[in-house]
């Protein structure tokens, strides 16, 4: 299939140079901080792996990590099935297809802090559309600055609003690539809707779904701006996800050593889980 050619490296070099510049140098800086202590004035002391031990044993980190996994789990469990369901019910051709796609993609093109600000004014209890509706029309007491449950429901709803379309677009692309002949064959065999989904549509969507799930995992695990603008991590620490906690330590308290150690642990976890997803989902392709 593919021919062996070491000269192909030359094609990859520009990419390698640019990404390495942006990835390796800052990463080395982080590694550097993570094993040292500083009291300002650019004076550093060797600290060994103390910061790593401190972070791994701290309750604060465990709590933030727990919230992060909870958030990402909710996001995947809601957005992936919902996205597939919406893609399945979309028209396959005609005037409405581009209209649907453009409208659905719109939330993804809004800067992340605008998304946060937008949901903030949308959910204000007395003057926001959603807040007013819940409090004064339905009579449900709702104030996400006071109630941790309301804050969680809001950040999860915001993310569903923001990113479900990515799953829809990718699944839809997989669906439209299925030739009509497949459906006709299924019809002749008398296949049920479920069977069509399970044996024709799902396998065809597999590669794009892998991309969608991986992207959703990485981005929801690293999420920072939107919940920070919306809730600021509150009330209390109830919506302080990993990135928010990290920035608090790094820039709020300026504890560079612990922040750097935490960054590396954080990155390692993301890497490990992504690798697991990637291997599991592409296992069949390799055989």
């Amino acid at each position: 299939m593919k021919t062996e050619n070491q000269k192909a490296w030359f094609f990859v070099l520009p990419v390698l140079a640019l990404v390495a510049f942006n990835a390796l140098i800052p990463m080395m800086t982080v590694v550097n901080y993570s094993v040292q202590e500083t009291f300002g004035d650019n004076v550093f002391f060797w600290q060994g792996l103390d910061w790593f031990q401190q972070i791994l044993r701290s309750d604060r980190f465990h709590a933030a990590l727990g919230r992060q996994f909870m958030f990402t789990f909710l996001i995947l469990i809601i957005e992936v099935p919902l996205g597939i369901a919406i893609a399945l019910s979309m028209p396959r051709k005609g005037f409405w297809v581009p209209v649907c796609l453009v409208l659905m993609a719109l939330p993804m093109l809004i800067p992340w802090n605008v998304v946060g600000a937008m949901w903030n004014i949308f959910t204000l209890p007395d003057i926001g559309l959603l807040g007013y509706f819940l409090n004064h029309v339905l009579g449900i007491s709702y104030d996400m600055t006071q109630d941790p449950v309301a804050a969680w429901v809001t950040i999860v709803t915001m993310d569903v609003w923001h990113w479900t379309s990515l799953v829809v677009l990718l699944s839809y692309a997989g669906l439209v690539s299925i030739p009509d002949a497949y459906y006709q064959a299924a019809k002749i065999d008398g296949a049920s809707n479920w069977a069509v989904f399970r044996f024709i549509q799902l396998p065809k969507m597999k590669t794009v779904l892998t991309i969608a799930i991986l992207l959703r995992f990485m981005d929801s695990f690293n999420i920072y701006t939107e919940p920070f603008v919306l809730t600021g991590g509150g009330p209390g620490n109830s919506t302080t996800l990993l990135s928010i906690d990290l920035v608090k330590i790094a820039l709020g308290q300026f504890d560079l050593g612990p922040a750097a150690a935490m960054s590396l642990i954080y990155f390692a976890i993301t890497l490990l889980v992504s690798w697991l997803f990637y291997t599991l989902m592409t296992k069949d392709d390799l055989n």
Partner: protein
Amino acid sequence: MQKRSIVPIVYILFLMLPIYWLVAMSFKTTNEILAGFSLFPQTFTLDNYKTIFTDPSWYWGYINSIAYVSINTVISIAVALPAAYAFSRYRFLGDKQLFFWLLTNRMAPAAVFALPFFQLYSAVELFDTHLAVALAHCLFNIPLAVWILEGFMGGVPKELDETAFVDGYSFPRFFATIFIPSIKAGVGVAAFFCFMFSWVELLLAKTLTAVAAKPIAATMTKTASSAGYELGLLAAAGTLTIIPGAIVIWFVRNYIAKGFAMGRV
């Protein structure tokens, strides 16, 4: 068929509600917003927009954002094209490892890199330039562009390359005049994603700029501090940030529908 279309309609309505609220608020005066709930603007005003279009510190934010996003998209696609070709056509030492390593750069939380990026770009004296933000965004956009383009290139039969070489095409001429046009849709989709992720990212963009290249999204935060909390102005600025994205997606709408389908499916 008719019953099924309920699902996308409800979904789109759900998507449009917060956007409607943002747009409606941008036409209200701050007094009206704070006075209480109103579904439509009672005293329709364009003052919020007038402020943005007459104050350089506002409209320069837009120019800056569009500048670095465009530079980033061009750089990302230009370097990703040959790399994606290499990954899709050849086997070479360490190709799989390199591909996965590229993807890992999308996994690094931007919050991790904020401070080191500031130091790095200050050291190379690019701090507060459009190029700094454009280059920094390459970190996550190049891997994505390579990933998408490689998928599209895999769908082009290898015979195309071979026939062209037999016909006496040199590699650069083949690449520019035959190969790239045959994956037009892929280039469109990749450019769209690069534009999108660079346009919406704020943390790095804000860290790497001070005055001269400050993005619009960062300019918005000043409404919260300097002049109290001017919700109307904030809403108008927010509304304006949606427009470039909407224009771009309108241009690639057909590529998105058909384009993805040719890719990694």
